[in-house]
């Protein structure tokens, strides 16, 4: 058996340690990220090693991002840690109206990376569970990435910081300690390329972030249950969205389920279906399906939480419907 001892959060910490070591333009800014090491320990020990470049911020999400924008104009590569993605709503204006418009308006790009601890965990409730990717992807001028694996968390964070444009880095809190790997190294796919996380021929599930793992579980169940081979596409980044890989998969399977953990109105799943329908309607053998969280705030109690977001069971139900259409 291979030792599985690198977690998703380790990957994020290691990527930041590498970036700080390799690139003097990189600095970290966020609440409690210094000596304390961050609410999730993503910056543990980093201030000790780089006292001038790991900086505790006041609880000022708007100013944190505004500051990062100014620093980026000055040639730095700031990484801003939101304590939770939910609080980025306070920085929304700086992100979409300042960072997102800057290159188009002035020709000067804004290379900031904003780390957003995203998605639900049981007991976290309405304000520590949100998935904000669709909100940011809606606006021009932002790249939005959603790594689902340990090696992607590592390589995509490094790639994000190397990009000259603003990146919203959605890291899933549920994966932080639960997801383990034997290595940080992976296939090093670039941002903008999706990956086939599980091969299949009967239906395609397009997912991203933690939902990739739920989709793979559902696919395993259906394999055992009825011999179905369900393909799972891991988008990896929702903007840019790798429409080609999605359509190539649908060409093989003829059936599409778009799966996400965010609220149901609009969003990434709607975008995926819209693109497949407009560009590859002829490839579909059944109406495409969507599965999202419910249209309520994310509930606190584990019983409610587990039923609010898609689960392997609800994914299986959607897939059965799709496969037998």
């Amino acid at each position, binding site marked *: 058996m291979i030792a599985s001892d690198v977690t998703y959060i380790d990957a994020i910490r290691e990527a930041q340690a590498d970036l700080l070591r390799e690139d003097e333009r990189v*600095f970290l800014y966020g609440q409690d990220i210094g000596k304390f090491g961050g609410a999730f320990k993503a910056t543990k020990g980093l201030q000790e090693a780089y006292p*001038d*470049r790991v*900086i505790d*911020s*006041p609880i*000022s*999400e*708007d*100013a*944190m*991002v*505004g*500051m*990062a*924008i*100014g*620093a*980026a*104009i*000055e*040639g*730095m590569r*700031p990484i801003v840690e939101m304590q939770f993605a939910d609080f980025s709503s*306070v920085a929304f*204006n*700086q992100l979409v*109206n*300042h960072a*997102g*418009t*800057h*290159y*188009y*308006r*002035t020709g*000067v*790009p804004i290379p900031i990376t904003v780390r957003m601890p995203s998605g639900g965990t049981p007991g976290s409730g309405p304000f520590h569970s949100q998935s904000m990717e669709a909100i940011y992807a809606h606006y*021009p*001028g932002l*790249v939005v990435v959603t790594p689902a694996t340990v090696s992607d968390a590592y390589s995509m964070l490094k790639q994000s910081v190397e*990009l*000259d*444009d603003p990146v919203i880095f959605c890291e899933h809190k549920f994966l932080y300690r639960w997801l383990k790997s034997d290595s940080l190294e992976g296939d090093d796919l*670039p*941002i*903008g390329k999706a990956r086939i996380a599980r091969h299949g021929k009967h239906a395609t599930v397009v997912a991203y972030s933690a939902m990739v793992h739920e989709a793979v579980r559902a696919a395993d169940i259906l394999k055992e249950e009825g011999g179905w081979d369900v393909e799972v596409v891991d988008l990896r980044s929702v*903007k*840019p*969205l790798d429409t080609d890989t999605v359509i190539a998969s649908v060409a093989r399977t003829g059936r599409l389920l778009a799966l996400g953990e965010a609220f149901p109105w609009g969003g990434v799943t709607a975008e995926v279906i*819209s*693109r497949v329908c*407009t*560009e590859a309607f002829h490839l579909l053998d059944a109406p495409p399906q969507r599965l999202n969280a419910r249209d309520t705030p994310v509930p606190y109690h584990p019983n409610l939480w587990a039923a609010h977001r898609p689960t392997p069971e609800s994914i299986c139900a959607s897939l059965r419907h799709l496969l037998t259409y």
Partner: protein
Amino acid sequence: MNGVWQGEAKINAEIPLLISQRLIKHCSVLPSPTLTDADLQTKDQLRTIYRAMLGGRLMEAKLSSLYKAGKIVGGVYLGTGQEAVSASLGCSLTMGRDVYSPLIRDQAGRTGFGEPFLDCARTYLGSAAGPMRGRDGNIHRGNPAEGYLAMISHLGTSVSAVAGVLLARRIKGELEGCVGATCIGDGGTSTGAFHEGLNLAAVEKLPLVVIIADNQFAYSTPSDRQFACRDLSARAEGYGVKGHEVDGTSLEDCARVIGGAVEAAREGGGPQLVVAKLLRLSGHGEHDDGSYVPQELRQSLLARDCVELGAEQLIAAGHATREEITQWSSELRDAVQEAVAIATQEAAPDARTEDWFALSTPSMREGDYES
């Protein structure tokens, strides 16, 4: 001298000439020219600031007439009455070394900072050759690579951005001798962004100067619907920054207090908050007649026209003669005309050749999802 409300006064462009003629009476005897080095420095400073004030006034007068002639798409926002404050800041900063994020009423400061009239004319007239290439307009312009930030509309957002440039310089070891500065109105101080930004700068003890032009109104909303503190300068202590108050109608006071605040920041004194008291001598924008401004205010000392008063101050102190001021006016008016003439001739942006890219990295661009 009071009540120079734009709607009542002669067209702005005429003001310097009118004033200078009127001043002959008052200033026929000039003080004897035995000046110390400090006096000479003050003289140079005031002359420089005054020229930027005049430049701002004349550029804006031109913008106003272009607007009224229907030549400008979108709004025109003037800084009439705020030139002393604005230019005192702009002239205290050096492009390339300092960081400046002006706001809506800072034509004079932009001119003082070294922005050519052509950049202004091109942005208002939508020339593709302008710094914003028709992608953004009017006051939303700058040259970020030179530390001249291009404001977004959302009030308060510049404070943290300027702080960020300064923090970056500190990390790089290049902060020594630099100052960052931005301006805001009384209304803009009510935003969360303003508070967050100033607090952040205070925590980091950055050399940031924030000028509040307290012009009594935010669009139509008077200050008593905006804040309840005695005076905005009282907030400085709460933030842990140095506070200053200044009569925003007086060139001499603005030059001293704002120049002093910039020097204090440059010398390691941390963030400086300057509150300038004045009255907006125009509508919020050229679409607005400002009829909600009460008569008492228009006749109060706050309504003194800083361009008029500044000329008197210069002449009374022997820093400039009436002839010089007239000469500056006519030179600046020519420069404004020339800039506008050039920008008017230039091509507008072409939607067919526009690249439509909001991201700089080619592989990150998605296009319009059209099939």
